[in-house]
Structure formats: C-alpha cells, structure tokens
C-alpha cells in the first residue's frame, strides 16, 4: 500500500504564492496617485484596446495587473455587485471598502481552495466627496487588503517604483505634475513613458456623478508637456 506524499500546508501556500507572484511579475506595473483633482491612475499599457483601468461606479475605479482574463472576470463581478447594491439600496450606499472586502473574500477563497491562485493584483479606489478623504485599497493575489494613502503601486516592479515615489511624491500635487510623475516612475532608466505607452484615468472630484474619465490623446499629450 502506497502512502500519499505529505506536503505541509506551509509549503503548499508558499508554492502557490510563488506561482502567483511569478505570474504577476511578468506584467507591467501601474500606479495610483492622490492629486488635487482626485485620484489619478497611470498604467504602463501600450495596448490601445485592452485596458487595465475601469469604471466600477459613480466614484469608484478598478485597476489591475496580471492575467487579463482573470481580472476581467473579477471586474465584471464588481460592476454587477455595485450596480445591484446601488439599485436595491441607494447610489450612496455603494462603497469602495465593501467592494474591496468582496474582492478579498474571493481572492482569499481561491488562493486557499483552488488548484491555482489568481495571478492578479487589484486596486479599488474611491474619490472623496465634499472634503471626505480618498480611499485606495490594494488587494493582493491571496486576499490581503492594504489600505493605502498618497500613492499605491501594483505589479512586478512595485518595490523600485515605491522607492522612487517616496522620494518625489508631494501632497496636493496638481494633475499635470501627477501625470508626469506617473509616466516617469513607470519608465526605466530615468526615461519617462510617452503617451503611446500609457493608459491614464482620473476619478475627477469636480464631476457631479460619474467621476471616472479616461485621459487620452491630445489631453494626455498636453498634460505630459
């Protein structure tokens, strides 16, 4: 009679984490920055059609790095969750915090119970209204939620980019400066990324209801200077 191999739970989880991290590290990074106009999200993304930054609800945006099909599925589930909540309760009752919790539940569940963890990292950001603070939740592949302030970095080069941002980020930075900062920290060797390599979106705190908008083409080039 053969004995099944014993693998300690520690080893299983470590292997899964390594697997997920390796997948995520292959992709390009993105940064979210609190700025004077709201929350700016800048992604290293040369594709014109496949996005990494999306609108979830009136004041909530979603951004992701990693496996495209996996984060798309999570994104659509988030839109459904938010729209259902807003429809059955009220638009004001939809919050980034709750959505981040729901994502954390799903990612944590998949990480421990499924054969393969999701190879994604998510950002759920909400822009504050009437002086309320912005919220940025960074959700890792294993369901860990980090509540971040000022800026948040997702992706394989997160550590280096975080270092760069710690040096050059200033509170209350204006929109153009934030776009330029994002382009610079995502680039390598001090070379900033240009408009063709960037996907940029803003949760605009001057907008009435739907705060999310993409910044592209002429507007993006102008902000990049």
């Amino acid at each position: 009679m053969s004995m099944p191999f014993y693998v300690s739970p520690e080893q299983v989880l470590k292997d899964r984490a390594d697997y997920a991290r390796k997948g995520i590290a292959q992709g390009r990074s993105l940064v979210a920055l609190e700025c004077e106009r709201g929350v700016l999200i800048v992604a290293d993304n040369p594709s014109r059609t496949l996005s990494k930054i999306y609108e979830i609800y009136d004041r909530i945006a979603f951004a992701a790095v990693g496996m495209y099909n996996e984060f798309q599925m999570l994104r659509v589930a988030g839109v459904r969750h938010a729209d259902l909540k807003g429809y059955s309760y009220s638009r004001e009752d939809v919050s980034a915090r709750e959505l981040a919790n729901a994502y954390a539940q799903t990612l944590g569940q998949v990480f421990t119970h499924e054969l393969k963890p999701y190879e994604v990292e998510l950002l759920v950001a909400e822009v504050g209204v009437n002086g309320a603070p912005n919220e940025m939740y960074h959700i890792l592949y294993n369901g860990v939620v980090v509540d971040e302030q000022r800026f948040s970095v997702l992706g394989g080069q997160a550590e280096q980019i975080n270092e760069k941002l710690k040096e050059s980020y200033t509170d209350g930075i204006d929109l153009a400066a934030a776009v330029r900062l994002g382009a610079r920290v995502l680039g390598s060797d001090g070379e900033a990324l240009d408009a063709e390599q960037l996907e940029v979106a803003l949760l605009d705190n001057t907008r009435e209801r739907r705060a999310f908008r993409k910044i592209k083409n002429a507007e993006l080039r102008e902000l990049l200077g």
Partner: protein
Amino acid sequence: MADNRLPFFAPGLDPGPSFADFLRHVAPHHLPGGGLTGAAGAVAPADMPHGTTVLAIRYADGVVMAGDRRATAGMMIASRRIEKVMPADDFSGVAIAGAAGPAVEMVKLFQTQLEHYEKVQGDALSLEGKANQLAQLLRANLQAAMMGFVVVPLFAGYDHARARGRVFSYDVTGGRYEEMDFQTQGSGSIHARNWIKAGWREGMSADEVVELALRSLFAAADEDAATGGPDPVRNIWPVVALIDTDRYRRLSDDDVAARGTPLLSGPERGGYAR
C-alpha cells in the same frame, strides 16, 4: 441581496452586459412589477397615481422632451410636482405616462441597464440599441400591464452616428415605433400633439422648440383635467430638457418660468363672451 459575495456565473448562465437579465438571476423580486404579477386576478386600483402629458420634439440640434408636473389618482391630484421626464443617460431621455409607480421603477432599471452595459462592455449602446432595450423592459411588464399597471414611455435622444435627434414611442406590449419628428403621450396628448402639428417645422432652434413644447403643454392642461397647467402661484412649471451634442440638460425652473410667463397672455387666456 443577502450576502457580500461577488456574483459569478457558470458558462452558459452568464447574463452578459444586461443588468435586467442579471437581476432576473439573482434578485427577481427587484424587477419592476415583480411583486404585482404574483397576485392572481389582481386588478390595478382606480385611485393609483397616474402620470399624464409628456412630449418629445425633434429640432435643428437634437430633441426637446417635456412634461407637465401632475399625477392624478382617480379624481384626486396625487402630486403637483412629479417629474416625468428623466435622463436615460448622457445623450438620451425618457418620459413616462401611465401608472406612476411601475413607470418610475422601470426608468430606474432602464437607467441602470444603460450604464451597466456601458461599464461592462466598454462602449455605450447605439441610440437604437437603447430604444430596443426599453421595448424589452416594457414587454417584461406586459403581465402587469394587463392587470392595469400600464406604462407608456417616450424615448428620445441624440444619435451621434446620424448626427440628429430621434424620437421613439411605445405601446404597452413593447411595440416600438420611430417617429419622424415628434410624439406625445398621456391623457392630454391629443391636444398637445395637435398644437405641435400646427407649429412644427424643420430646423427649429432650441428657443423656438422650447416655446412650442410649453405652448402645447399649456394647451393640453387647458383641455385635459388630468394635465397640470403652469402654476405661477406655487412656481410650478413643466419639466423641459434639451438633448443635443452638449448632453442631456434640464432647464431650470426659473428659465422655464421666464419662457412660459409671456405665453400666458396668449390664446390660453381664453374667456367667455359676456
């Protein structure tokens, strides 16, 4: 919605970009009329609030939509300030006549449906696609309509692909009809429609078409007891919204009052020979 878990679907059961289909899966009781159709043999009460006269008119740059502010419940005035013209999204609007409760619910679902599609799919529906979506929601309401909860909307918007405003009307079964230039709906609609017919011409300006819309609503209120007239005492005026390349925008009450007041000294003054 009982829990805080994200909704996922097995392949083949996924509702796609339709919020109404999604709702049908997870919370059918939230659908408009969801509570009505369960009661067998139920008939709509006569004193249920009804919305009355609404209209949509095409002009040079887009469309104008307008509606009076009254809702009636039998012989009673249920509301003097109801708003029956609402934005469907940035470039289209919906106006409702009929059973006020189900109509307001349907508009809310319609608005969510359009935004949901746009977010899930990444692009907004075409104007015709939006018009068809509303037809489907009406068709889903047919059972409630047969019980007396009749909802008849008008839908209008700016069609970017064709660079013009378009007007659609509906019947209770979800039949969808595109109008050439204008349409009215509700109890005072005949009076409003005749007035528009007499005054409409191709290429009207926004100011001209707003005046025509106000005149026809005033005329409808003059002849139809269920349509609310202008009320300078309480400062209640019709809801008027313009939709063109510059998005849906509702005119302020002060603006409508300023445009409407001069019209009150016209033929509407009426009077009898002494």
